């Protein structure tokens, strides 16, 4: 699932007064769950945000109910734009769903505030093997040495390209082992000012942008402990200049142009030849008949220190104050199992996280080189996150937009970003 930078919603503004009310109103509902085995029927609520995945999730819930007739799972769908504000208010009031979807930027916030149940017991009694999921994802959902989420699905990043534009300029298609130099020279060769075609799009984009190029240059966005910024390093500068040089040379539209028309739309309209996008994009391109035949995907190009993509994925978590701990643990164990992954793979919307179940997704769209996304998994780096991720991603967007736009030079901007981000991270501790 992609992580939109603006996860906010207009309606959420209305929540401050309500949240305030909720603070005072709660207290009685938040009794902690019983640990003994439960008798009698139990209804679990399962909070999710993607409507497209409802059929698969319902099927999983039904199969779980068939195996555990005592437990009924009820889906609670909240659109992503309101999901986290609603969830936060509900959790503050003691009424969050028993089990719900979590994402990378938020997991440490919830875990560090004791809103999530540590899953050691779920893993041992449910006989889950964490080695069956990509390691970067297991790390993403760990906090203080404990697992708080079981990886549900994942996405990596690839370079989509328009074959027609490559053919027009007689540029060879990207190969699986292409390099940064190959990408840069192709971007310049494909640019055709007269026709209004750019070789590549270099937006101020983290997940399908500098979160990939910085590690490929040998740098990191945030250190493993989530305590220190990596933006001040020479490697990070290299990872950023990978993009800004494209804008400077006119091989990419300017930030202003990409603000007016999104780079994704420019790519779909055949105005941009190469566009970095996550594995979630495959379904979208597969659905447009004209694009289905003209575009394809390659892995991210190999940088000075390797061919590295960022990996993100959702996790299933248990609310710390659930009243049905046993049932919730059983359900999360089922969600983390092979059968649940199989059901998701067949539905096709996402790549399931469970090892060996991803082939169905690749086969669903045989005209695309989707294997590229899977091949990146072993080397992928976890999505950068800390306890209050959004504070420094705001800084990141602010400052890097100025760098991209040429208002601040890259080296100065990154130093400034590193300083401010370190200050923000220090406050989290």
């Amino acid at each position, binding site marked *: 699932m992609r992580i939109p930078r*603006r996860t906010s919603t207009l309606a959420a503004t*209305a929540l401050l007064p309500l949240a305030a009310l909720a603070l005072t109103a709660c207290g009685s509902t938040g009794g902690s769950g019983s640990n003994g085995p439960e008798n009698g029927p139990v209804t679990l609520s399962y909070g999710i945000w993607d409507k497209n995945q409802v059929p698969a999730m319902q099927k999983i819930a039904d199969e779980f109910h068939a195996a555990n007739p005592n437990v009924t799972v009820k889906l609670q769908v909240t659109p992503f734009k309101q999901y986290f504000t609603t969830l*936060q208010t509900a959790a503050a009031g003691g009424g969050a769903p028993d089990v719900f979807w979590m994402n990378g930027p938020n997991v440490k*916030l919830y875990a560090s505030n004791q809103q999530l149940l540590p899953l050691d017991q779920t893993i041992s009694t449910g006989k889950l093997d964490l080695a069956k999921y990509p390691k970067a994802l297991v790390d993403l959902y760990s906090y203080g040495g404990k697992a708080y989420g079981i990886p549900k699905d994942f996405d990596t990043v690839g370079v989509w390209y328009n074959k027609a534009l490559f053919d027009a300029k007689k540029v060879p298609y990207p190969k699986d082992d292409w390099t940064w130099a190959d990408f840069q020279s192709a971007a310049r060769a494909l640019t055709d000012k007269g026709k209004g075609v750019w070789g590549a799009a270099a937006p101020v984009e983290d997940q399908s942008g500098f979160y990939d190029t910085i590690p490929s240059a040998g740098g990191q966005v945030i250190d493993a402990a989530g305590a220190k910024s990596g933006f001040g390093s020479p490697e990070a500068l290299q990872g950023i200049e990978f993009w800004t040089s494209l804008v400077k040379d006119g091989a990419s539209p300017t930030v202003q*142009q990409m*603000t007016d028309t999104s780079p994704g739309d420019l790519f779909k309209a055949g105005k941009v030849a190469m566009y970095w996008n996550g594995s979630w994009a495959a379904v979208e391109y597969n659905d447009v008949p004209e694009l289905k035949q003209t575009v394809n995907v390659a892995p991210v190009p190999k940088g000075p220190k390797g061919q590295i993509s960022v990996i993100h994925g959702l996790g299933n978590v248990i609310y710390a104050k659930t009243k049905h701990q046993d049932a919730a643990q059983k359900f999360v164990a089922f969600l983390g199992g092979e059968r649940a992954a199989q059901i998701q793979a067949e539905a096709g919307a996402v790549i399931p996280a469970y090892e060996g179940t991803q082939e169905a997704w690749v086969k669903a769209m045989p005209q695309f080189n989707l294997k590229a996304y899977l091949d990146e998994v072993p080397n992928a780096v976890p999505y950068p996150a800390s306890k209050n991720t959004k504070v420094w991603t705001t800084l990141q967007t602010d400052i890097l937009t100025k760098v991209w736009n040429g208002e601040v030079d890259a080296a100065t901007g990154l130093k400034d970003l590193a300083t401010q981000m370190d200050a923000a991270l220090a406050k989290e501790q």
Partner: protein
Amino acid sequence: MASGTATATSGAAAVRTGSGSRATSPAPGRRAHGRPAPTRRPASAKRRNDLFWAAVFITPTLLGLLVFYLWPVVRTLLISFTETGPFGGSQWVGLDNYAKLFGDARLWETLLNTLKFTVVALLGIPIALVVAALLSTEGLRGVKVYRVLYFLPVVTMPAAVGLIWRTLYNGDVGVINAMLHVVGIQGTNWLSNPDTALYAIAAVGIWLGLGTQVVIFLAAIQGVPKELYEAAALDGAGRVRQFWSITLPTISPSVFFISVLAVIGALQTFDLIFVMSGPTNPAYPQTETIVAQFYQRGFVENQQGYAAAIALVILVVIVAVTALQFRLQKKWVHYV
């Protein structure tokens, strides 16, 4: 996103309630003259009955007001003295949040943006006056059609309006630049150019609000006694002179009413900015309003105590500006 103005502004409920000017009627000054206080009569059964029913009818509104407006205002004030975590659990920090306000350069930038936006938005009032004056021309056909046309934007969702205007303003394929190109002017990326973005968005704000303003001015103009115009015409005053000397002074209470509302609305702008600009827009530092900054701090960065302090700053600014307007009105508003 589809929730439109209603939801967007109700978040600033605390701000709005406090200003107290919402209750102004189209002729606020009337209250100054006031009716004589009712003389005490012996309490009759009828009067008690009336009072009872009055209470019955007012109670639901009063309860709603208390629960959804006044209580949140009090809570906001309390929260502003705390550091409140994302999941509740607050810690009393006294005036720390207020001390922090002074060093927050970004906050004052956004306040300045908001004030600029407000000044530009006020330009809508003369435009609305001219349109209303033209529409009230004697014998003009299809007034109703025009009225509907001008009013349509008012009943359209601001979020939808914002999206449409985004495509019109588009630097490469926008209609506005295409038209400018015809007359030989090189357009720009209106919404992402830091020099133009705020004004481009304010123009949409004016367009959105024009309908309400025109309808109210139209009603006011129609209430001006015809004899005044006839007398003026006999004295040889032309249409323009009549407008300045008769129409404008007579409808000045409505102009005042509209300007108070327009200023409050502009100071609380959020949805248009949210849809037409945004953090990835290079013009965002020049277009972010103070309410957007409040949202950012409270709901994105989870600093709810500090956000509450910002909400109170917004409240103070609105009260101050509105009080100033009430003070100045004595110089130019005429109550018949």
